[in-house]
């Protein structure tokens, strides 16, 4: 696509510059290094010209004009406060007005020290106020959500937060209420600002009106040491900033990555970090003669671990989990295949299939960057398969919503019902349950025919038999490009490193054979709640178990040797996001003795008389053929096919210790179509229970028009309804609590 950009010549403070037509005056000034004051202006939000801080003189116009809202025209002559008395006076007047009702509480305000209003008042404001009236006050603060607090008297009505909620997140749960001097941001009485993206409003607030319960009164900006970081919570690949004071993370912010997260992130990435310090393992542990886990020195623990692993050797199963960095993934791959000589290695701690293994090997592993965020933004059509971006890759959601709102991109989704996220993307539902997904994909050819169309498959496609094959076939037949979007930050790096059971046992088989063909287990970041099947039983069955972990878990409790590894803030590394894009990060909190998984594996290898290599596994691996999976389900009376995924905020272990965040999570509900509700004797609004193999959960029923019949949906591992079954299961559904 060729884009021809018309340029115009404009003069700012006497400097002529050629810029693309339509550029706003304030952006042109930025290019020239001229800072025009601003509060309401934000480059990613539509202009409102409300605060009037950026008034400049435009030659030929009698009144000063808002630089944030006026696109330059050819020959325009602009004078900022540096060269125009009109502009300078106008800006000074606005600054004075902004301050008359603003409290002088900078010393106790979270924003103090990094506050645009404070900075501009110091730079351009009067030294003494002329206002001797009574300042506007409000009871303070109010909760707009459990996490986000609002001190209304600090607000300057810039409407950044409300525009963000409407234009970016699509969660218009905050709005400007009242009018005139009483105008204030607020919520309605019955709906708090529970948005997955609410924290961004705190970050873009140009004053201290919005603060987080998490960070409020915790620190001063100038006491923080900031490190650029990569978010570890999902495969979106956000750039974030970690702010540390005295070796503790105080807060995390979205950082600037125009090609990925722009300037946003989700609340999980922003607030879910207490796990980094709580419940940490501090020393290696070794099981003693009495069967108790006791603290051990690193040399002893490594010796015991090496001895046990030497014994199990090629009969060792290696489970790495999906949170590994690219470097750690390579180390696991080399350690398993080359040091131990086993092919029983898998990163997947979730439902999987042979079809998926083949799909990942043939369509994902080792591929260069193909589909990008930028491509999503210009695609005529995007087909989502078993993937709800708002829950499962929130930055993908934001980008797709942006594209959809600009009427560029049509979003289609093969899913059981119209989710809130799909509605916010103005998407079209292709209703299908897990067992019908493959057919629905095959029938969606018309939607992805236009050049540039994209198919995005989620990791849940592994639970829809034939779906991955169907998606690959559809891409091949239509020319649409295909990308796989997993949930965890380490998943894509793990696939590329070869942490897949090529010629070996997958996670399910490893656990099933534990104590039989599989003698030993080496387990990375996996916990019992992650895995379909009985991990606890497998550990108990295995002869020897080594656990590499950051915190005490149900695995470390049962392992023979526990080797503590560092969390993301203590190590450097790289996360590879779903695009295949790498984001490297450095140590944010230097910690003596902290070792990454890779460093521990290297020591173990050395103990075993070997060493790790950097072999490219996929260069020589035999890739299995992609064959559609099959199913044989019979759904009886009182039963339905389960569809489930994890809400972004749930009982995940990395979200522990953050009650304000947890309080904004979506509550668990059971969804069925009205017809299915009738056939299962369920009543809208009353409780029902979903059950299979002893695993069950109870939640209120929501009859969902347009939902596919014969399917029941409930979130996985949600607070109050901790169901842990994969999609595609046939479950019993009954009215009432369990």
């Amino acid at each position, binding site marked *: 696509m060729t884009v021809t950009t018309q340029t115009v010549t404009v003069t700012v403070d006497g400097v002529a510059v050629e810029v693309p037509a339509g550029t706003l005056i304030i952006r042109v000034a930025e290019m020239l290094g001229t800072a025009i004051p601003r509060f309401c202006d934000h480059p990613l939000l539509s202009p409102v010209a409300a605060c009037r801080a950026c008034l400049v003189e435009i030659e030929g116009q009698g009144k000063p004009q808002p630089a944030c809202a006026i696109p330059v025209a050819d020959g325009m002559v602009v004078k900022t406060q540096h060269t125009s008395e009109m502009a300078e006076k106008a800006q000074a007047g606005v600054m004075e007005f902004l301050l008359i009702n603003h409290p002088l509480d900078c010393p106790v305000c979270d924003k103090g020290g990094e506050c645009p209003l404070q900075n501009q008042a110091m730079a351009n404001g009067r030294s003494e106020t002329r206002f001797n009236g009574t300042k506007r006050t409000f009871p303070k603060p109010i909760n707009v959500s459990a996490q986000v607090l609002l001190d209304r008297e600090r607000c300057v009505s810039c409407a950044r937060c409300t525009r963000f909620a409407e234009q970016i997140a699509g969660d*218009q*749960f*905050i*709005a*400007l*209420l*009242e*009018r005139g001097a009483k105008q204030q941001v*607020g*919520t*309605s*009485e*019955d*709906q708090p600002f529970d948005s997955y993206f609410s924290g961004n409003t705190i970050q873009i607030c140009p004053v201290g009106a919005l603060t987080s319960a998490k960070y409020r009164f915790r620190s001063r900006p100038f006491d923080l040491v900031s490190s650029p970081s990569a978010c570890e919570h999902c495969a979106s690949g956000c750039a974030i900033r970690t702010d540390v004071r005295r070796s503790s993370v105080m807060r995390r912010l979205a950082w600037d990555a125009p090609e990925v997260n722009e300037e946003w992130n989700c609340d999980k990435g922003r607030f879910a970090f207490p796990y980094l310090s709580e419940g940490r393992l501090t020393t290696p542990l070794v099981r003693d003669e009495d069967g108790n886990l006791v603290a051990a020195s690193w040399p002893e623990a490594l010796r015991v671990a090496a001895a046990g692993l030497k014994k199990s050797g090629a009969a060792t199963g290696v489970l790495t989990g999906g949170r590994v960095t690219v470097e750690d993934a390579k180390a696991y791959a080399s350690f398993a295949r080359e040091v131990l000589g086993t092919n029983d290695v898998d990163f997947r701690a979730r439902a999987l299939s042979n079809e998926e293994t083949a799909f990942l090997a043939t369509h994902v592993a080792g591929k260069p960057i193909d589909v990008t965020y930028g491509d999503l933004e210009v695609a005529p059509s995007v087909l989502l398969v078993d993937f709800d971006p708002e829950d499962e890759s929130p930055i993908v959601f934001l980008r797709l919503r942006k594209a959809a709102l600009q009427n560029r991109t049509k979003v289609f989704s093969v899913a059981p019902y119209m989710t809130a996220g799909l509605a916010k993307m103005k998407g079209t539902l292709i209703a299908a349950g897990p067992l019908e997904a493959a057919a629905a994909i095959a029938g969606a050819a018309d939607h992805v025919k236009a050049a540039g169309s994209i198919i995005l498959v989620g990791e849940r496609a592994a639970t829809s038999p034939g779906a991955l094959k169907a998606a690959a076939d559809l891409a091949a037949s239509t020319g649409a490009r295909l990308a796989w979007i997993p949930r965890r930050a380490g998943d894509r790096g793990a696939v590329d490193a070869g942490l897949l059971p090529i010629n070996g046992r997958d996670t399910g088989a490893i656990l099933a054979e534990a104590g039989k063909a599989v003698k030993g287990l080496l387990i990375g970041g996996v916990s019992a709640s992650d895995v379909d099947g009985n991990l606890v039983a497998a550990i108990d069955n295995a002869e020897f178990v080594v656990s590499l972990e950051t915190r005490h878990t149900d695995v470390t409790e049962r392992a023979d040797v526990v080797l503590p590894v560092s969390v993301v803030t203590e190590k450097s590394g790289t996360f590879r996001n779903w695009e295949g894009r790498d984001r490297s990060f450095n140590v944010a909190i230097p910690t003596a003795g902290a070792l990454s998984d890779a460093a521990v594996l290297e020591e173990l290898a050395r103990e075993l008389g070997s060493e790790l290599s950097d072999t490219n596994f996929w260069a020589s691996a035999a890739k299995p053929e992609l064959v559609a999976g099959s199913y044989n389900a019979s759904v009886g009376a009182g039963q339905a096919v389960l569809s489930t995924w994890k809400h972004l905020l749930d009982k995940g272990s990395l979200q522990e210790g953050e009650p304000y965040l947890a309080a904004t999570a979506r509550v668990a509900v059971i969804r069925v179509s009205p017809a299915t509700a009738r056939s299962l004797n369920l009543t809208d609004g009353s409780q029902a229970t979903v059950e299979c193999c002893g695993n069950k959960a109870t939640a209120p029923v929501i009859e969902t028009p347009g939902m596919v019949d014969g399917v029941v949906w409930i979130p996985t591992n949600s607070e109050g309804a901790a169901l842990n079954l994969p999609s595609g299961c046939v479950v019993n559904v009954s009215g009432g609590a369990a």
Partner: protein
Amino acid sequence: MSFSEQTREKARDIISRYPQSRSALLPMLHLVQSEEGYVSADGIAFCAEELALTTADVAAVATFYTMYHRKPVGEYHIGVCINPGCGILGGDTIWSTLCERLGIGNDEVTEDGKISLERIECQAACTHAPVMTANWEFLDNMTPESAIDAVEKLRRGEEVKSTRGPRIRTFKENELTLAGFDDGLAGEGGNADESMLAGLKRAKELGQSAPEVKK
């Protein structure tokens, strides 16, 4: 409160007047007030549901306009114009007289729920100053005495006629009118009053008129 199916039908009737549904929000909030006497959280939720908006979005609108009340007003909501054009010509005196007589202030309701008072701004009736309104019907050229008389009559349930309109009805009844539902009263209140006709009368007295069209 919950809204009946008839009210929902009225809401849909309002929505059908407009090319885009959201335009129905202001009349729908009048409809809500015709049911509730104010706009409650339920009323906001009702509009949000019918128009597929968030409740915050509806609350933002409901709190912007002064005619929407977030707590119940009296059966007769009395406005006294205190904008200088009326206030100086007697509105301020009428206001303080009424407050004293009723024992209530701005945005307050008498204990019996009959009367509420509001200091209102210009009603586009400056030629009829000082002006009051009862459920927004004009009570023109008022005095403290005539103001008290009108309010006491309304309180007792006696008939009071608008000086340029029909018999004063309840707040809820008039809100239904403003939601766009005909009450059959358009012909009440006469064609024009003395002030509206002052110029025409004067022209006729002086024998003045607009020039004829040259054929």
